[in-house]
């Protein structure tokens, strides 16, 4: 049985209530941290654990915490980023909906480590029902003395608030999130200064993903060294993967990092293979913004090694033949999936969600979407394909925040790996007129079939 750290008690009935959660060892990390450890010792444990941010970038969480300006006289804040809006990612929703106290517990422990007296959970507006679940859980935690003044009789006090957003993907970017939390328009800030120095209300702030904060619980309970033993190499611990697409068992899975991708897709314990007995065509491994990979590259790296579910292995080969673990939105496509249509959908999303602050992203995302719309509907030209590559290249890296990159990478990678399919759309407009064209007659690329063989 693979190790489960986050979802261990997920199936326990009424785990969302305080009593049940407490009975199953809940809030032990708060007791341990507040009563026996100094804040710095908690940070040290997180550093030792090698925990990497689960929101997408994979930045070491302990290192991020150590950057927090502790000398500042201003109050310090911990903000939980629950603005999960990446297409293909729904792990935080599952975690918060089923086991809200795990996040609350992690927030208290992490706030103690960072010396935050006020902490916020910034949650996306579409998760309104989860706001209610979290608020009920927070109420229970206040009643039990785990929040508020003098938690468990120690001098430490903490107030925790849930703040819903208003439905913008960009507010998942940490500085845009802080702007939105301050009540302003959710535009990303220019960095530096980083939030660790001047974040919320210009005070030192740490912004962490829901899963990262939830992972702190088991790190404090079991110790950082113990946590680091789970996983593989620098990718320590477990990760929630949101599996979706053409698979037999879509859902949220907790995996130990280091699991082979092939096993994840085809074993009955996880995705259970491709549905309807079809063949695997492509995988978007970490949420819509990471590069898409064809079947032969997702199962094996360009060097022929087995690809594993780790930060390093998925990124092997750079963007030429690799991808990223990202936020763990694992989208699987079978042979009837149309890459162009899928890419157009992604582009439409980024066009819709661009904040419009800096020009490359504001103009470029719309441009790419319109060109892809034309190609998908059979009105494209051959030179449009190169145009898309060029536009993507000019957005990438030139924007204020990573949304520009997130919009450019899928386009660049889809054309890199599936160029024939784009050319097919341009050459045979009558064949792609039907939106379900590939279900009627799947596109076959000799080159990719040879590679997959």
């Amino acid at each position: 049985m693979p190790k489960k750290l986050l979802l261990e008690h997920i199936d326990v009935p009424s785990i969302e209530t305080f009593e049940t959660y407490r009975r199953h060892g809940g809030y032990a990390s708060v007791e341990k941290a507040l009563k026996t450890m100094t804040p710095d010792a908690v940070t040290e444990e997180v550093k030792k654990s090698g925990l990497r941010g689960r929101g997408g970038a994979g930045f070491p969480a302990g290192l991020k915490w150590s950057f927090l300006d502790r000398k500042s006289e201003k109050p310090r804040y911990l903000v939980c980023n629950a603005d999960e809006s990446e297409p293909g990612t729904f792990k935080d929703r599952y975690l918060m909906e089923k086991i809200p106290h795990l996040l609350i517990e992690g927030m208290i422990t992490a706030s103690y480590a960072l010396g935050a007296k006020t902490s916020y959970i910034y949650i996306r507006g579409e998760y309104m029902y989860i706001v209610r679940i979290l608020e009920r859980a927070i109420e229970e935690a206040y009643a039990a003395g785990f929040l508020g003044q003098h938690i468990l009789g120690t001098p430490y006090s903490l107030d925790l608030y849930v703040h819903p957003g208003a439905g913008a993907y960009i507010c998942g970017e940490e500085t845009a999130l802080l702007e939105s939390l301050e009540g302003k328009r959710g535009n990303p800030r220019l960095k530096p200064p980083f939030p660790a120095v001047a974040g919320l209300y210009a005070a030192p702030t740490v912004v962490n993903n829901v899963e990262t904060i939830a992972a702190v619980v088991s790190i404090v309970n079991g110790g950082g060294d113990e946590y680091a033993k789970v996983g593989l190499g620098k990718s320590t611990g477990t990760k929630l993967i949101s599996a979706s697409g053409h698979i037999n068992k879509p859902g949220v899975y907790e995996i130990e990092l280091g699991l082979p991708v092939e096993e994840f897709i085809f074993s009955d314990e996880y995705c259970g293979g491709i549905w309807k007995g079809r063949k695997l065509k492509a995988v978007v491994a970490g949420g819509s913004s990471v590069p898409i990979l064809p079947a032969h590259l997702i199962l094996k790296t360009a060097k022929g090694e087995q690809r594993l579910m780790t930060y390093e292995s998925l990124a092997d080969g750079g963007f030429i033949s690799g991808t990223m673990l990202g936020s763990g939105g694992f989208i699987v496509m079978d042979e009837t999936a149309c890459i162009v249509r899928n890419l157009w959908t992604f582009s439409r999303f980024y066009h819709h969600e661009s904040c419009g602050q800096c020009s490359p992203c504001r103009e470029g995302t719309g441009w790419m979407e319109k060109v892809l719309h034309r190609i998908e509907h059979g009105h494209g030209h051959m030179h449009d394909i190169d145009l898309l590559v060029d536009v993507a290249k000019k957005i990438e890296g030139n924007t204020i925040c990573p949304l520009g990159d997130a919009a450019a990478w899928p386009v660049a990678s889809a054309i890199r790996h599936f160029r024939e399919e784009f050319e097919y759309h341009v050459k045979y407009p009558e064949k792609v007129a039907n939106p379900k064209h590939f279900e009627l007659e799947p596109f076959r690329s000799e080159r990719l079939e040879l590679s997959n063989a």
Partner: protein
Amino acid sequence: MVKVTIDGIEIEVAEGTTILNAARQIGGDVVPPAMCYYTSLKDSGGKCRVCLVKVTHTSTKDPRPMPKLVASCRTNVMDGMVIQNITSPEVLEARKGVVEFLLINHPLDCPICDQAGECDLQNLAYEHGVAKTRYEEERRTFEKIDIGDKIKLHMTRCILCYRCTFVADQLTDNRVHGILGRGDTSEISTYIQKAVDNDFSGNMIDVCPVGALTDNTFRFKSRVWFTKPLDAHRNCDKCCGKVVLFTKGDEVLRVSARKDKYAEVTEYICNECRYDHKRLSDWVIEGPRHIDRNSVISQNHYEKIDLLKLKQEIERQIDFEKGKQLPEPNQSLTA
């Protein structure tokens, strides 16, 4: 003082200077263009991305290059920093891309735009743009609206530099306009039409780099290069009173604040000076305005204005107002 190298030219600048301002101290070709940055407006800049430069050497302490191109208007220099602007093909390529992005949704209606001739986007496109567009799609358009009594907003032309919002935040006591919507459909607007009603709101027109915000009293009066700009001042209890009069014959077509060679205003003027004093006799004329910018507006030979004749003309107007007989008929002001 810190030492930085920009395109191989070394210069010592004060600590806390941005790369852009360090380059401006060198001057000439190494100065990156700027569409959204405005020296006198705090927090402006970083949005348009045309000032991107490459930092090949972060500082003496940290010799690593910066991973991405950085916005020179918002990046402070560090001791020993080495920066590439026009010597880096990567920067020029990225800049060309940004100019193209700025232009794809721009209506390119320069022939009927009041800003033409003194437009930052026009100059930028002339220097960095490509002559042919690759954009085949429909351009976004908006209705023209009056956001204030005398300010026309032509949102279709806007490049969303946010400068006018900074003016409203920092010069006036209440901002009533802002950005609505998001992405390429975001727009500058007011909740209620004609809501911008502040004594310094006219400065929004001056800071606008394109023809999105124009002076309703000057619209379609004249091409700007047919006017003769004169430095003038008056005693004003609200502002510095130092302005440029854009004149044609003995008519004052437009009053604006004085812009430096980067098209930036340092001394803002009030709406009374801008709109209510449109007679030469209201002003003390200092002389022709030297416009130190690489723009169509500087191509005119307006600096040859005969000052003596000009003074006579002003006296004639003053006498006329006092009810005296005109000493001589109206005549051209140029030599």
